[in-house]
């Protein structure tokens, strides 16, 4: 149906297995063709731009340059919020002709920087993609209350992301509601989860995760859904630790939005990836599906 140049990012090949599996499943179902950018490299993430501005632009720009060459007609899509941000920054930097030429000199490739950079929320909230998802729904997740967590980098800074609403975005809410699930109104959609500092400044950044769980719970969410490998891992992997650290009893599984879509489209636990979570997620989904099973016929 639609084709994109695809920049997976480093996490997609390692920790984000569930995202990868569910994305591939959903893309297959709705006919989304993702053409991986050949021999892509790390976008530099947070580390590069804290050290060296030119390096940050250039690492990201190499990938865009390859895509420009290989898939001249396709927009670039990336599953990771950090990659999205870095690629979009590089595109923004290229608006300045002097910087663009400097980047070309460094990466030794032609670099126009005109391609659209999209994240998967952008793609899935396109009307025809949404329609295709809707048509492929076979299960009903009614009753499941979800807090959609967008994180920082897909919203901010606005000059890079061109996001409509940076405090209360609605793209993901609309997408997951295709499954019948309810997106709850909550206030930490775009608050930082501190992922970039969880390794090097854990003591200072763990409370950020706790605040997100707290607000999600206070607003009645049973699950949190993300659209980024880093956000997802940060919340999912550390939920247990947070409970111990802050003496809390959060029981809020953390999904990728593609997992929820995959389940709605009929994927099993393995295919959707929900058996691979750190914090157990199977029971919640199973419970919802069982409760809805009787109603399905009507």
């Amino acid at each position, binding site marked *: 149906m639609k084709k994109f140049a695809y920049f997976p990012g*480093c*996490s997609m*090949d*390692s*920790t984000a*297995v569930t995202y990868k599996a569910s994305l591939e499943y959903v893309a297959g179902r709705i006919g989304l063709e993702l053409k991986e950018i050949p*021999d*892509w*490299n*790390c976008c*530099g*993430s*947070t*580390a*590069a*731009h*804290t*050290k*060296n*501005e*030119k*390096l940050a632009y*250039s*690492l990201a720009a*190499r990938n865009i340059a390859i895509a420009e060459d290989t898939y001249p007609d396709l927009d670039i899509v990336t599953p990771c919020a950090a990659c999205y941000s870095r690629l979009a920054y590089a595109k923004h930097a290229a608006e300045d002709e002097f910087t663009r030429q400097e980047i070309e000199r*460094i*990466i*030794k490739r032609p670099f126009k920087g005109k391609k659209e950079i999209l994240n998967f929320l952008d793609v899935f909230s396109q009307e025809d993609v949404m329609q295709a998802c809707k048509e492929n729904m076979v299960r009903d997740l009614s009753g499941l209350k979800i807090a959609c967590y967008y994180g*920082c*980098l897909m919203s*901010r*800074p*606005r000059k890079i992301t061109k996001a409509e609403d*940076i405090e209360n975005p609605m793209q993901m809410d609309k997408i997951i509601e295709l499954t019948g699930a309810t997106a709850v109104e909550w206030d930490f959609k*775009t*608050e*930082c989860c*501190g992922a*970039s*500092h969880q*390794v*090097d*400044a*854990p*003591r*200072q*950044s763990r*409370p*950020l995760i706790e*605040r997100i769980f707290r607000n999600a719970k206070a607003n009645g969410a049973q699950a949190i859904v993300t659209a980024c490998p880093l956000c997802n891992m940060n919340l999912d*992997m550390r939920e247990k*630790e947070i409970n111990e650290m802050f003496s809390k009893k959060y029981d809020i599984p953390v999904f990728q939005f593609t997992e929820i879509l995959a389940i709605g489209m009929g994927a099993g636990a393995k295919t959707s990836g929900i*058996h*691979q979570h*750190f914090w157990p997620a199977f029971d919640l989904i199973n419970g919802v599906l069982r409760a809805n099973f009787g109603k399905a016929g009507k």
Partner: protein
Amino acid sequence: MEKILNRKEGKLLAERIAREADVKLHECYQCGKCSAGCPMADAMDLMPRQIVHLMQLGDMTEVMKSKSIWLCASCHTCVERCPHSIDIPTLMEKSRMEAQRRGICAVRDVRLFNDIFMETVRGFGKSQEVILEGAYNVTSGHFFQDMKNVPKMLQKEIVRPELNQVNAVNEVRDIMKECEKGGANR
């Protein structure tokens, strides 16, 4: 220590950083909305607002000595809510680069993590979460951090032992070399 305001050794540096970040320092009237919404503020020794104020005073020494510039998560909450759209993350970032050039670093671990991250990229062209975490734990001395999760990761096939590498890894190395020319971090 008493601060003598009319000695403005860091004034030029502060002004240059502000210019590069496209910030008009005088616009800040210290409302504190940045710091109020900053997720990392609790861990910072100087509030983001105070960083801007020190730059207004031209006191870059104190800015570069602070932990705050290393703890900024670049989440951009401050700049979006600021009444004058003051780009604090970029001020922080540029101050951090200046501090690095002078060998000042108040939060060693952050710098270490960034260095290791970039070295794995230099080595493979892609970041390697396993090597990254391992190397960081060894060099930082936080040996067991996040280690509880490793067995589970392997068991659930979340992390596979094989490494990802860019074929044209030399190309990436060249880019890094080129960018590091003429002063490591400019």
